[in-house]
């Protein structure tokens, strides 16, 4: 972990867990207070996993929202708005878990960091590009995300377990939807197919990063936070996904990726998105909502 944001792992909690809010307090969904069950290294790895997963969902949610109003058909305007809302909701719940673990404020985690401090996989550094590109990215991401959530389904970290149970059920709809689109583009004639193939070829190396770049994942597996290290999650994902892509005659994964998976170096496209999603908050960081 090398983030320099407001949340610093390995240091004492700067803010005590807040007491339950009474009537009239501003809300948000509260999770159980964190249990002090892990050693320092495992705890740091857990914080890294929460941040990376939250950032993945958060950034993808914002890219999805870029389709609002301009999707190819009205149904997809509705669908991508819902997908975006789901992902940003998941991110919010995960930032809250991280704040419960490490102190800090979930909104500050979401909007208060510099672009280099985000830990999303570089698959999410690409812009929305064309429809086939967005479909290909979402399909790769959603299938990887389902594999990741499966490995968290019986997490020894109780607060995460409850959130994951909800996320998995919602992600099933994402997977159904994106699978239908991949099939439609793959079998929908020359141009959609060519665009989909080009997008998959471009995105595959970066997609491998969704299940990579989590420091200390083996510690997390030992502690039962993850059912298995990320390499095993990745193998399980590819074992499920590759035959399906082959069935549709679509390109499969490369042998490996090179370079760092989760920053700190970021694309200009992500910097542009960051400008967009932090714009309102930066205009008045003290505003109460």
């Amino acid at each position, binding site marked *: 972990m090398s983030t320099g944001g407001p949340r610093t792992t390995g240091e004492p909690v700067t803010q005590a867990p807040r007491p*339950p*809010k*009474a*009537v*009239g307090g*501003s*809300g*948000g*969904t*509260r*999770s*159980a207070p964190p249990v002090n069950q892990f050693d320092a290294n495992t705890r740091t790895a857990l914080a890294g996993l929460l941040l990376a997963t939250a950032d993945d969902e958060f950034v993808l949610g914002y890219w999805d929202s870029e389709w609002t109003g301009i999707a190819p058909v009205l*149904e997809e305007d*509705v*669908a991508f*708005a*819902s*997908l975006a*809302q*789901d*992902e*940003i*909701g*998941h991110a*919010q*719940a995960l930032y809250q878990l991280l704040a419960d673990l490490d102190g800090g404020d979930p909104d500050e985690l979401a909007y208060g960091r510099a672009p280099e401090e985000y830990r999303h996989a570089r698959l999410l550094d690409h812009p929305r590009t064309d429809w086939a590109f967005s479909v290909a990215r979402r399909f790769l991401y959603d*299938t990887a995300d*389902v*594999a990741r*959530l*499966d490995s968290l*389904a019986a997490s020894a970290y109780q*607060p995460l377990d*409850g*959130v994951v*149970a*909800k*996320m*998995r*059920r*919602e*992600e*099933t*709809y994402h*997977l*159904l*939807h994106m*699978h239908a689109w991949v099939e439609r583009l793959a079998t929908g004639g020359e141009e959609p197919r060519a665009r989909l193939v080009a997008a998959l070829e471009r995105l595959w190396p970066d997609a491998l990063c969704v299940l990579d770049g989590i420091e200390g994942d083996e510690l997390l597996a030992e502690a039962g936070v993850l059912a298995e290290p990320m390499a095993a999650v990745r193998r*399980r*994902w590819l074992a*499920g*996904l590759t035959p*399906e892509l082959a069935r549709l005659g679509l390109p499969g994964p490369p042998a490996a990726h090179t370079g760092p998976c989760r920053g700190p170096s970021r694309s200009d496209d992500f910097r542009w998105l960051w400008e967009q999603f932090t714009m309102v908050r930066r205009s008045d960081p003290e505003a109460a909502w």
Partner: protein
Amino acid sequence: MTTLTKDAVWEALAEVPDPEIPALSVVDLGLVHTVELDGDRLRVELLPTFVGCPALELIRTSVAERLARMAPVVEVEMTFAAPWTSDRITAEGRRKLGDSGFAPPGQGAAAGGPAPLFATIPVRPSASCPWCGSADTTLENLFGPTLCRTVFWCNRCRQPFEQFKAV
């Protein structure tokens, strides 16, 4: 002041409508996880339907407002301690959904819980028309006007309708 009972709290909760489908109460939807009475303190825990549902805070404050003054200390919280699933909608809730023009959640995409990658993909949600009862319907969009709804078309009465998602 008579002694507050849990039954009285549940009766009050049954008066709090869901903001998106007001024909149903938070009890009909199965949103109430626990009701605890401990001396002066009344504590109610609610389960979020969808993690990103923007109505969660509205639901929480509506419940808090309804319960205010029932006890000296009233706490209303959302919790992920148990997952809300569409199976928690009561029989009465399912009937009210139908009366409001919504197909109740069925053996849909995620009914029965999550499955391994691709195992659920062939199972697309199906629904009967809440207006005419016909099973001759077409899934128009897995996503709808709110996170919890799916859009169908009835081929018989030629009307769109929504189904509450099975999660």
